[in-house]
């Protein structure tokens, strides 16, 4: 069946800068913002934008991601003439298979999947961005400007621009030059890593790129420069809303804190719901002495202590007299009575025993940072986990 646009979601990244949090899971399945995992944002955006066919390219620790996505039902993506497909790397009978060697290669290895739907356009998404975007709007501009490629861009400061892929736009409004991390940026339009390609063109560029032994098979490094060189029409789609890359511990913590403010990103908007697979727990319970201030709490939580400026995922328990301040608690995390968790990220099912301390408030020192406990760790009673620490699963604390 012919589709106007299908999406390919690059979810294969290892997420090595999230350290303990991605020790056993792929970055897109890291819990985020209370009820979500990171991948819920692009998947929900697809569903809300009317894109009902999504290929999810996985390769690194995909087990949890696969079972999380399942049939795609939580995002209404369980449709009969499309749906959400997990696409791992595979070996063919005659040709040699391999891991995805780059973003472009990941798509190239799945030409057959895309051709199955014979779409006019292909939307390429990352699995590690937090944002709400109407891809239908982007597709409309793409078609209106007869572009071979439309790139979502966001205005950034010139200082930030030196760390990003920058689009230099000519008088015509089309992109004329693309610079990766320029020392002296000529423009403040940064690529968000979200692309809509005309499929016929992309197909041709992917095949040519695959034959080039010197290519690193990357959209930013190879495909886009090649298209510019050949004078293809590249249109910048200017996006103004909230958008965050959550590839590092600090950015993940920051973006979680942003979820406490509806003015940055409104998750309560019924017109653009971000959906997730719900564990179906009882409602959360707040005890007789509980104090919960400027925080989000969800199903299955049992709160007896004090929670302030924090993001709590499903089934978190905070014991009597415990304090959770400026922290992110992932599903099933337990803070026992009298324990203090401050400026920290606590992984799934990790237990902070009575009287233990995790993290400290910022003291202006250089070594300060958010303390991170990976999943399934027990922090012993009375133990101290200093600011900036990184605890891996299996470590004794």
């Amino acid at each position, binding site marked *: 069946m012919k589709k106007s646009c299908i999406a390919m979601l690059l979810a294969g990244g290892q997420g090595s800068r999230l350290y303990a949090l991605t020790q056993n899971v792929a970055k897109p399945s890291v819990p985020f*913002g*209370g*009820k979500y995992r990171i991948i819920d944002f692009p998947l929900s955006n697809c569903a809300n934008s009317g894109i009902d066919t999504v290929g999810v390219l996985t390769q690194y620790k995909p087990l949890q991601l696969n079972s999380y996505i399942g049939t795609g*039902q939580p995002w209404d993506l369980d449709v009969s003439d499309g749906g959400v497909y997990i696409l791992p790397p595979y070996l063919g009978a005659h040709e040699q298979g391999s891991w995805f060697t780059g973003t472009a290669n990941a798509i190239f290895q799945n030409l057959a999947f895309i051709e199955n739907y014979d779409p006019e356009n292909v939307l390429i998404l990352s699995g590690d961005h937090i944002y709400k975007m109407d891809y239908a709007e982007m597709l409309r501009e793409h078609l209106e400007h007869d572009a071979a490629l439309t790139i979502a861009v966001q205005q950034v400061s010139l200082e930030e621009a030196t760390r990003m892929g920058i689009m230099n736009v000519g008088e015509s409004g089309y992109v004329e030059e693309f610079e990766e991390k320029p020392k002296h940026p000529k423009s403040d339009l940064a690529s968000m890593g979200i692309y809509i390609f005309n499929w016929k063109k992309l197909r041709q560029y992917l095949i040519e790129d695959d034959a080039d032994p010197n290519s690193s098979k990357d959209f930013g490094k190879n495909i886009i420069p090649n298209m510019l060189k050949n004078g293809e029409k590249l249109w910048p789609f200017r996006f103004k809303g909230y958008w965050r890359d959550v590839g590092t511990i600090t950015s993940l913590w920051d973006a979680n804190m942003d979820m*406490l403010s*509806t003015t940055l990103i409104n*998750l*309560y908007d019924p017109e653009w*719901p*971000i*959906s*997730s697979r*719900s564990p*179906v*727990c*009882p*409602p*959360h*319970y*707040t*005890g*007789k*002495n*509980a*104090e*919960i*201030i*400027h*925080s*989000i*709490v*969800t*199903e299955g939580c049992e709160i007896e202590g004090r*929670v302030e400026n924090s*993001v*709590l995922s499903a089934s978190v328990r905070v014991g009597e007299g415990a304090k959770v301040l400026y922290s992110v608690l992932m599903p099933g995390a337990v803070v026992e009575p009298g324990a203090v968790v401050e400026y920290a990220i606590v992984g799934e099912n990790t237990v902070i025993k009575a009287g233990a301390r995790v993290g400290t408030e910022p003291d202006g020192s250089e070594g300060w940072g958010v303390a991170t406990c990976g999943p399934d760790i027990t922090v012993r009673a009375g133990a101290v986990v200093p600011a900036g620490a990184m605890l891996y699963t299996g470590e004794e604390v």
Partner: protein
Amino acid sequence: MRDYHGIIFAYHDEPALRDLTANRTAASLPFCSRYRLIDFALSSLRNAGILDVGVIMQRDYQSLLDHIGSSKAWDMSRKSGGLRMLPPFGLPQYHTGNYNGTMEALNAVSTYIRRIPQKHVVLLLGNMAANIDLDAVIRQHEKAGTDATAICSEGGPETSHNRYILGEDGLVKYIDLFRTGNWVGIPSLEGYVFNKDKLLELMDICQARGLYRFHQDAMTYFLYEIGGKMDVYIHHGYARIIRSVDEYYEASRDALTPAVRHELFPADRPVRTKIHEHVSTYYGEQAASRNSLVGDNCIIEGEIEDCIVFSGCKVGPGAKLRGCILMRNCVVEAKARLNFVIADKNSHFSANSVLVGSPKLPTVVPKDAKI
């Protein structure tokens, strides 16, 4: 496939539930911040692997149909078997008025029951708050080898129950009807495992004699006329049949106690429900929430104490709520004060409004009301 078929009675609209059942049956009464009462029966069946289920309904079933939907939430949307909603279709006389009793309700869907491929049926009330371990019930039933097993409570004497008195063989000898107070006998939770052919026999005799009640008519015939053998299974956890506003309010408040909550929602037998929440609940800078159960997607900026708050509610800054139940999407504006109020869906309380009930007589605010 298990050789058991579930039947849930969801047709009751109890008069003592007043406005709460104006547009719904007791089985679709919202309960405990995110559930409907029927979720307990559906989940008990699902957790015991019984996925072929008939739900007997009669009137005011819009909210029930809406809640159950495709029954996917309970894994009962199957290619073969699965869940069927059963409106009256047996005989034309059942299309008008209320069912007078359970036997009449069963006879109204007798063609369905005759076609059940399984040998045993599990009968459950849709309006009961109890997480019954049907696996254990069935194990005991099979061991006893009787025609039927009655699911009973060890429960106290405080509410009215049909009671079973056992003989020396440990099986039911007598039935005492609707006893209140400290009487002998084991209170029935009106759930049964029945041999299907035996049940059909009871349905047939009731039909022939113009009888329609389960306990008064069918069970007395079963026990006294044909000497039917019935075992008793004791459910040890929390159990309340909800037939009045008082019972509803009390059971809701009971769920605030950790012990009751853990009996209703044990980790190994989860209660499943239709999911509509996409987002967490936000507590504001001035919020306070003590001894309360709160669903998702709420914005709490005021103070709540001893409350049950369903998803989608908003409590404005300075508002104070005590002992209240707010069903889905209620809005309590700034500085409103509500004590002992049961507010049905979409109720709206404007700023500074005051409404005070009492713990013994909570004030019921009907759906969509504006105060």
